[in-house]
């Protein structure tokens, strides 16, 4: 039998005070990010805001001054500020140009941007690789859909938790831990200045599912141990349970992590931010079952038991 983790006895519950401080700060950042997104100040992708994306490849490196030239040419053409990024790979360079919220029906702005590119550097043969022109109505529609997707996912998760646990303490604890992860992850995405695209929203929901799974596995073990070891007290039972399944947590987390890492480092630009969000989220999902979900059970018991004592 090969075991990395054997008979551990880490005092997870004892560390909860530090976790409260950390989680408190992260949640505040997450809430701030949430408000920013709601008020339209967040870094929303063009698929939500409407706008234009142009991706063109070419063979020589462009200096920051060159890119500045392109940027001012785009502004002069009346398309406002643009976000320009140069990435390289396989001996070719790729220019990513993003314009937000242009008052025009979609379809032609990306062509105009390509035209501007060609005029600014006539000697470079730019090759059109991808374009996207999103009209404001389509963006608004997608925003609407994303909000509903998050809403229904959370409702479905809450319903599942209720069916699964039936008791308020476990249910609330699992729900809080899941929400904690979604908000904190949103906060991290915000701090990293990742563009919030539909894929990022997808990553948030995927992590909500993963985090809940992790919490459910921990809770199952806690309930199982409570049946036989109630007398040792909840504090000890939680610590015992988390330690008992530590190797499962680490192994499943590990396999998922290596798979996501492979996507992150080898999967290319399309899925990079998505994979990065998942990667961070996987840590969060495990963290929250140890340091958010389980401690809530403890605090809950404290509150109810003091209430009982007062009642007597």
């Amino acid at each position, binding site marked *: 039998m090969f075991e990395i983790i054997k008979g551990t006895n880490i005092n997870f519950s004892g560390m909860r005070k530090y976790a409260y401080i950390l989680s408190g700060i992260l949640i505040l950042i997450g809430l701030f990010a949430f408000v920013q997104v709601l008020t339209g100040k967040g870094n929303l992708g063009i698929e939500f805001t409407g706008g234009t994306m142009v991706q063109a490849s070419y063979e020589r490196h462009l200096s920051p001054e060159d890119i500045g030239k392109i940027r001012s040419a785009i502004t002069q053409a009346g398309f406002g500020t643009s976000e320009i990024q140069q990435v390289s790979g396989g001996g070719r360079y790729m220019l990513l140009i993003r314009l937000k919220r242009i008052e025009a029906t979609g379809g032609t702005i990306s062509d105009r941007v390509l035209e501007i590119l060609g005029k600014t550097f006539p000697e470079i043969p730019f090759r059109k690789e991808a374009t996207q022109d999103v009209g404001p109505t389509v963006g608004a529609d997608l925003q609407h859909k994303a909000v509903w997707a998050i809403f229904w996912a959370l409702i479905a998760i809450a319903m599942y938790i209720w069916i699964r646990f039936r008791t308020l303490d476990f249910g609330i604890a699992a729900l809080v831990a899941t929400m904690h992860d979604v908000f904190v992850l949103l906060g991290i995405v915000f701090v990293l200045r990742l563009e919030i695209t*539909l*894929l990022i929203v997808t990553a948030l929901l995927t992590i909500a599912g993963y985090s809940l799974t992790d919490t459910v596995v921990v809770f199952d073990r806690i309930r199982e141990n409570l049946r036989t070891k109630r007398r040792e007290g909840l504090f000890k039972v939680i610590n015992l349970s988390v330690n008992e399944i530590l190797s499962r947590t680490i192994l499943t987390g590990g396999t998922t992590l290596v798979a996501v890492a492979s996507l992150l480092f080898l999967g290319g630009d399309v899925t990079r931010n998505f994979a990065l969000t998942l990667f961070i989220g996987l840590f969060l999902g495990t963290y929250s079952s140890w340091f958010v979900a389980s401690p809530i059970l403890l605090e809950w018991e404290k509150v109810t038991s003091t209430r009982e004592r007062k009642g007597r």
Partner: protein
Amino acid sequence: MRNLNTWLIVFILIVTAIAIWSLFPSFQFLTLPPAVRGGNADSLARYGYKEEWFRSLQKKALHLGLDLQGGIRLVLAVDEASLAKTLGVKQSELKTKDISEARDKALTIIRNRVDQFGVSEPLISPEGPSWISVQLPGMVNVERAREIIGKTGLMEWKLVQESKAVQDILARLDRAQAKAAGITDSVSVESSHLFTTHAVYDGRQITVMRESIDTVNLMLRDSLVLAAIPPDMEFLWGRGDERDMTPGAKPLFLLKREPEVTGASLVEARMGIGTENNPAEPRVDFVLNHKDAAKFSVVTAANINRQLAIVLDSIVQSAPVIRSRIPNGRGQIELGSGTSDEAKDLAVILKAGALPAKIAIVHSEIVSQTLGADSIQKGKVSAIIGLLLVVALMGFYYRISGAIADIALIFNLLFLVAFMAAMHSTLTMPGIAGIILTMGMSVDSNVLIFERIREEMRVGKTVRTAIDAGYNRALATIIDSHVTTLITSVVLFWFGSGPIRGFAVTLGLGVAISLFTALVITKVIFDTRKQYRTLSI
């Protein structure tokens, strides 16, 4: 027990055979040379493949999303202002039903048009209450796609105003412009030809030079100018490539606003070669339906020696002088310097019928084939490396038992891709991400079981009982851990569009299939031996 196991093995073998069989066309398709995969008739012929064979193979093969094979996706919306005009109501009075009816009609027409252009595997479907989503895989010429799809295809015949009326209106516009420029002195107003310096009238047609086109367009939108044009007249541009025009210049026409005839439905439209001026120039011949032909006959009889403009989607194609009554409803459109491809396209558009209203392209997305191929390559590499890492990790930690879990994982992937091919789902880049995530998450079942088996063995149970107890006791947790992922997948599938759906499908299916592979297949392998003295776990 032994007996049950045999049946299970047979069942697994049958499922595997079906999976391989349903994957075979995809395998055949993906091993074709990339140039052939695009479905271009020329390259098919060059490599010696029959087109029919290719089309049927393409239908059976796993469908690749636009992000992986390149192509165009457009979302079209019915223009409500134009629909209201067609129906003769105010825009605010439009009902949702009117819009969705127009949408459905437009969808049929667009499908007809696209079908005739021979784009392979186009996907045209309604999206939401008023949109149409058009996917043209492998097509990258967006200009042509927009022409085919976005053109309303409404042909109208409008009378050109006679020269006296034109001169009168132009003089009015000069005065309106002077007023707008703040000139008040009446002599200066009369001598300031602010409009006619840009738009020059020679008694036959108004010509606007290239550098003045933007200025004239701006002037024509000015409210003072608009007020100076009588409500029953309108200015429309010509194509700009007419004969004896300075290159870059465009003719401007003053027309009667009300069309004499509207050719929303033509009996026939086809490309022809040869016009009055050039025997090699392409043209489009058309035949009006009976009702319109009768109207046309009356109009032509009543307006001999006047110019009658053929207007297509608000652009004047030509404005020939009526020499005599045209009784049979036949006519032709000259395309000037247009190519025969353009003539063909126009004929198809005219024949498919006019759209019930203008169509706006509200979203367009283009991915080049090289970028798609690049994504496939990166997806492939990261999936293989991800798989190897997961397989290695499981084998390292659980030894032979881990290898059994790895076998189950490979079955999982096989079934997943086969199921997608059989269901004609589309594989996208996020879909590949879903597969990669599935690989990491679906071994969780085996991890949970193996950890249980270890625990049971630690408390001194025999290997056999430990295995059985491990499977039984881990089951509840396994189901739990899968349900949560399935919930997110279902929600994402419901609300997600395009690529997100691809992710939801692969993740959801992958996790669901893993319930079978990680539980049943591994158990079957463990059960091939009745007694264990030791277990490599």
